[in-house]
């Protein structure tokens, strides 16, 4: 699970580390913080026959 720091601050996050603005980091399952946006997994659909 990945999340992006959408705040303008460098943040100290317990069990994650120090995260700069705009940085995308791995976060534990269930992570929930208003300063972060959870990055949804991209689904690649192969339409080639």
């Amino acid at each position, binding site marked *: 699970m990945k999340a992006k720091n959408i705040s303008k*601050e460098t943040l*100290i996050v317990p069990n994650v580390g120090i*995260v700069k603005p705009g940085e995308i980091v791995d*976060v*534990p399952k*269930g*992570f*929930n*913080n*208003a300063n972060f946006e959870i990055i949804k997994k991209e689904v690649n659909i192969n339409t080639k026959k």
Partner: protein
Amino acid sequence: MTYLGSNSYLGLKVEAVENTPVIPNAFCPLISESIKTNINYTADRRMKGIDFKSDDLLPGNKMHEGDIVVYPDADNLGHFLNMLMEKGSTTGSATGYTHPFTFGTAKSYTIEIQKGPYAQRFYGVKAKQIQGIFEDQKLKLTISVKAVGQFSGGQLKAALSGSVTELKLSSAFTSSPNKGLVVGDTICLQLDSGSYQDIVLTSVNADLETVGFEALSITAAANNLIYLKAQTPSYTSLGGILTQGNTLVGVAATSALADTAAASKATATSMYDFSFTLNNNLFDAPSTGNNQGPVKLIEQVKEAQLSISRIFEDVSQHVSWLNSIKQALTMIITGNTISGGTTKESLTIKFHKVKPMTNDEPLEVDSIIFDRQEMEALYDSSDAESIEISLVNKTAGTSY
């Protein structure tokens, strides 16, 4: 499963519209808290043909209040002052913003306190009183707050099955059970399987009981539990507390002279103990068309007190007490240097007029004599001001 209080947080954010909840995104390490919702239950004593005292409880006026205890840093201190006092125009830049505060109309906040898996959210929060003491050299604040409403947990009103995009909350606690929730919140719903489903809200509906979300396949019976999911806290800083060792107090006949005295160690008054209480006597306006709690919180008469212990050096303080002589007092606490410049964080509190209510000089064997004073802060007619606070930190004024 057990949960440790040490993992909890205090989250807070100023509300753009008073008493309209927002999602807290600033976090402050707590020492303790005791904020609770008092539903004022009483036993139902109506005659129902039974000879036992009561068969149920009836709710009364809902109140939300209690204390937050923290060692503030210069940044989160701004939020607590903003809950109690009125912030003027911020000046400066990222290497040092100056935020002035005077007594006036405070801003309301949404705050969250983690209790294990759930977040106890209060909205429309204002401070009634801030008490500051130096404990083991560290400035410790006890912030007494009140709120107009809360959201923490509830129950599902009607069963869900298959693909669903909304749910209704039970109105057992209040007729407006979705109040306190915000679009973007994550709530957890107990499924019939026993596990909990995270649900990110895309709407909080005007019917005051429905919330919407992206389609999910859910099987849940009526009365299954729902709670607001606790956040993982994030901090902009975990140091930078304010200490007595970096505090200078100036006492003089006027506020301008007290400022001058507080500007250097040579002219400052040495304080052994120092504490202050700032109070706006916040009033809970009775509930009107709002089943969550008070309709709003209103500041009433403002007041402040100081408790001081200083080394007795001459008769001046004794006479000040006997003859009720006006003094002015300025306290400056200096913190860390703000990154990128040379400006230091600071908290300046100016009491334009104080007088000792009591001045004790107790004698003890082998102990030097102290002036122990309980001071009342007063309105100074010549300065047209009672108390001014100035906070210098790295947080932009828009955050407050």
